[in-house]
């Protein structure tokens, strides 16, 4: 089997196996829908609300992507500051950790109260707040553990710290950066949905989840979760494509 085919088939097989296992689990335990719906229950729910799914998925997706983009910008900025200065690192890390240990679900109402009615802004804000930390951590580690041999190539030419960052440190840490981006993108989805569920404003998959909840329509609720998972996977593949372009060099194929 060619490498290419393997790359396409293996995730499909894994997902199918997972769905089969899920179906079996529900069937074997004879769980009612409200405990856990099985994949075969979800399809009708999807189909019935297909238009809503499409529309709301788009709402959720664009807010997530905007939030994530913001997280990348701010995360990289934090990472650079913390990576280059040990003092800033020891000073900022505890603050950031404290901030991130606070459940965002409890922050949502506060944000909603401060920026009343700015639903899109609020949602993007929460998506951003929940997802920038892994990016900041990965960039700061990339910088603070950069081998001097690499740094010196450019420093010997009188290059500024910023140049060293762009030409050496960032490219060298790209694999870790993309790993952090994958983690951050799943977090951003969680953030978007938190806002949509906790402070509903009639848009997004979170809203559809709520509707399902009101009607005790469990298959719909599970279908929304699966839709979120699918969106997450879509965004993941977008990140993978970026990674192939920018950090393809890093992967070392074992010769054995």
């Amino acid at each position, binding site marked *: 089997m060619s490498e290419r085919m393997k790359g396409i088939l293996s995730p499909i097989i894994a997902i199918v196996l997972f769905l089969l296992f899920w179906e079996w689990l529900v069937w074997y335990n004879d769980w009612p829908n409200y405990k856990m719906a099985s994949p075969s229950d979800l399809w009708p729910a999807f189909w019935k609300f297909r238009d809503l799914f499409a529309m709301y998925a788009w709402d959720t997706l664009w807010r997530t992507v905007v939030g994530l983009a913001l997280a990348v910008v701010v995360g990289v900025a934090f990472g650079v500051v913390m990576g280059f200065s040990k003092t800033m690192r020891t000073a900022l890390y505890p603050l950031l950790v404290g901030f991130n240990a606070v459940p965002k679900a409890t922050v949502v109402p506060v944000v909603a109260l401060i920026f009343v009615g700015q639903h899109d802004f609020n949602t993007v804000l929460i998506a951003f707040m929940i997802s920038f930390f892994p990016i900041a951590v990965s960039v700061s580690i990339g910088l603070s553990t950069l081998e001097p*041999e*690499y740094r*010196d190539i450019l*420093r*010997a030419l*009188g*290059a500024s710290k910023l140049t060293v960052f762009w*030409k050496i440190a960032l490219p060298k840490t790209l694999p870790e950066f993309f790993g952090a981006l994958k983690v951050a993108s799943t977090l951003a989805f969680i953030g978007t949905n938190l806002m949509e569920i906790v402070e509903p404003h009639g848009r997004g998959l979170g809203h559809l989840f709520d509707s399902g909840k009101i009607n005790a329509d469990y298959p719909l609720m599970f279908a929304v979760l699966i839709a979120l998972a699918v969106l997450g996977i879509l965004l993941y593949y977008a990140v993978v494509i970026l990674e192939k372009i920018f950090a393809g060099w*890093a992967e070392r194929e074992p010769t054995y």
Partner: protein
Amino acid sequence: MSVDVGIENVSHAYTTGQQSLPVLDKLNLTIPAGQFTAVVGPSGCGKSTLTRLASGLMAPDSGAVTLNEERVTSPRSTVGMAFQNPVLLEWRTIIENVVLPMEIVKHDLTRNQCLKRAAKLLELVGLADFKHKRPSELSGGMRQRASLCRALVHKPDLLILDEPFGALDAFTREDLWQIMRELRGRESFTGLLITHDLRESVFLADQVVVLSGRPATCQYVLDVTLPEDRRIDSLYTPEAVEMLATLREQIEIAQGRKQEVAA
């Protein structure tokens, strides 16, 4: 353009935890503009340290490094440096690695002109067909040659080479010696060369400095009296043979007799 280099009474020690390891001890050395100086000395005596001080990557504990009488406090873009360990950036192809300095240094060439200059250098060192390969696809000696090109591409005023030919076979090495001498004829730059190969030092340099064991002091300075247009044959002249013998002797003295000692 080339510069005068002055190493004046430079001392340096590395400190890790409580321990301090003195490496250079009141070292004095001058390289007149446009001249080439080779530095030889036992392993671990402080030669690479000297290059880091001369390039401004490190500041000496005491003493001063000057370029054209001006004190060096930080690295400058007019220096070209080939490190002992030729680190290439894995995410760039060979030619992209070589043009890297052109992306930092100010100049008024187009990207294409830069690439052309890099390509020419790569051809000179025999890597024409490896321009677009990744560093991991090169052999050790090929990487070293690419690193040499990277040091030369921006036409530096001061060229610092830390054992640039160590991983090359005798013939490739001799070819590169000749290329270096040609380059010196065309473009004028000052050179500081670290090497273990005495023939190399005599062939390439105008002055050979022998360092003593750690902490290194200047143990002996040899003025190379070979004619300007040297060929490999020149190394077999009685003059050259005598110089090589002197250097061997001086190094033997410098070495005292081996055994590394940490402070």
